[in-house]
């Protein structure tokens, strides 16, 4: 498999674009950024084609690149947000230590926040975002990309057993989150 060959690159792109794009969307939560990550994934694959181990699965390799880029993006965004939100509000001329984050915290009326929280999709999104990186990736790869524990283990560089434990922990957290939000089905009781 020579990814420097445009025909082959196109073929690999067509076979994996949907999965990679959706993984990026679900990880970073933004279509524009997800498109950027998808493109960068293939540029990386092109420039670092020599790092692909012969005999391995191209899709596994691409998922790994895409996942790493997504997390790099999230970390950078988190850092930027922290840096900007912790900056003092100087434009008002106040020098009492007020920050942008403090102004944001009080800007949303409680009723709006409550409505948003009750929305199932937002709630699931929030619960997934709150999961640790590894658990989040395991859930997404398993649920939306139909990967087996072994395949996920290859993408993440873990053992299949660890991946299974991660998935179980993540689903337990999801279930409790749903239950707290009153969104778990009534027949499902907390087993733990």
């Amino acid at each position, binding site marked *: 498999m020579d990814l420097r060959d445009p025909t082959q690159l196109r073929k690999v792109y067509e076979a994996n674009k949907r999965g990679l794009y959706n993984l990026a969307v679900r990880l970073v939560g933004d279509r524009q950024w997800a498109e950027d990550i998808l*493109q960068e994934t293939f540029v990386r694959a092109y420039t670092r084609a020599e790092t692909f181990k012969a005999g391995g699965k191209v899709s596994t390799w691409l998922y790994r690149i895409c996942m790493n880029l997504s997390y790099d993006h999230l970390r950078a965004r988190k850092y930027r947000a922290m840096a900007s939100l912790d900056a003092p509000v100087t434009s008002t001329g106040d020098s009492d230590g007020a920050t942008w984050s403090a102004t944001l915290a009080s800007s949303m009326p409680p009723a709006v926040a409550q409505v948003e929280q009750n929305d199932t999709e937002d709630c699931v999104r929030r619960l997934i975002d709150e999961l640790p990186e590894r658990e989040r990736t395991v859930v997404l790869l398993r649920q939306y990309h139909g990967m087996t524990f072994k395949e996920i283990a290859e993408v993440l560089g873990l053992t299949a057993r660890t991946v299974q434990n991660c998935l179980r922990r993540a689903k337990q957290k999801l*279930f409790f989150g749903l239950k707290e939000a009153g969104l778990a089905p009534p027949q499902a009781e907390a087993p*733990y």
Partner: protein
Amino acid sequence: MRPKPFSCKRTQKLLDDHVDGLLRTADSEGVRAHLEQCTPCDTEAAALRAATASLSVWGDLEPPPDCFEGILARIEALPPDLLESAPHSPALRLLRGGGRWVATSSVAAAAVVFLALSVTTPTEHDAPARTRHTNPVAAGLLSSTGPGLGLRTNGLRTNGLRTGEVRAYRVDDFLRNDGLRRGRTRNELPVSPASFGDALGAGAR
């Protein structure tokens, strides 16, 4: 014939695949038979099902149609040397061609030599305590590698010399303190690179 129920341990191992519908029929029936008679496992399965069902709220999206053109444009814009150097690099070829052990053993050998040079070298002359335990050649080697190499491990002690002190012999410091500070340019330094180790030793003394 009714399938034989699995044990709790086996069920727990297969439960995720069972909930996701990935088990073979025989295994699936064994798990189901167990769940019918074991309330804790059944409750856990229900919770997993609820969590899995909640994840179905996210549908799949199609990437924009012109996305591949964007990739080609980015590739076109890459600097040419980025593509020329990487795949043809002999070092990378060596690493990829099963020659990793060569690289690993080379690094190990270099580390041994480095450590041998940096440990105590008994000296007869009466040098200040800070320089007495340091081999100037090792210091020279260290200086070319910059900070962060093993010896600067925040206060670990090696033969009476605090590792942070090795930094006193970095090339940059020598140039700054013993050479450039006296108004010389780099080309006018009093020592050649070949005798640099000796010069460092002398400078330290």
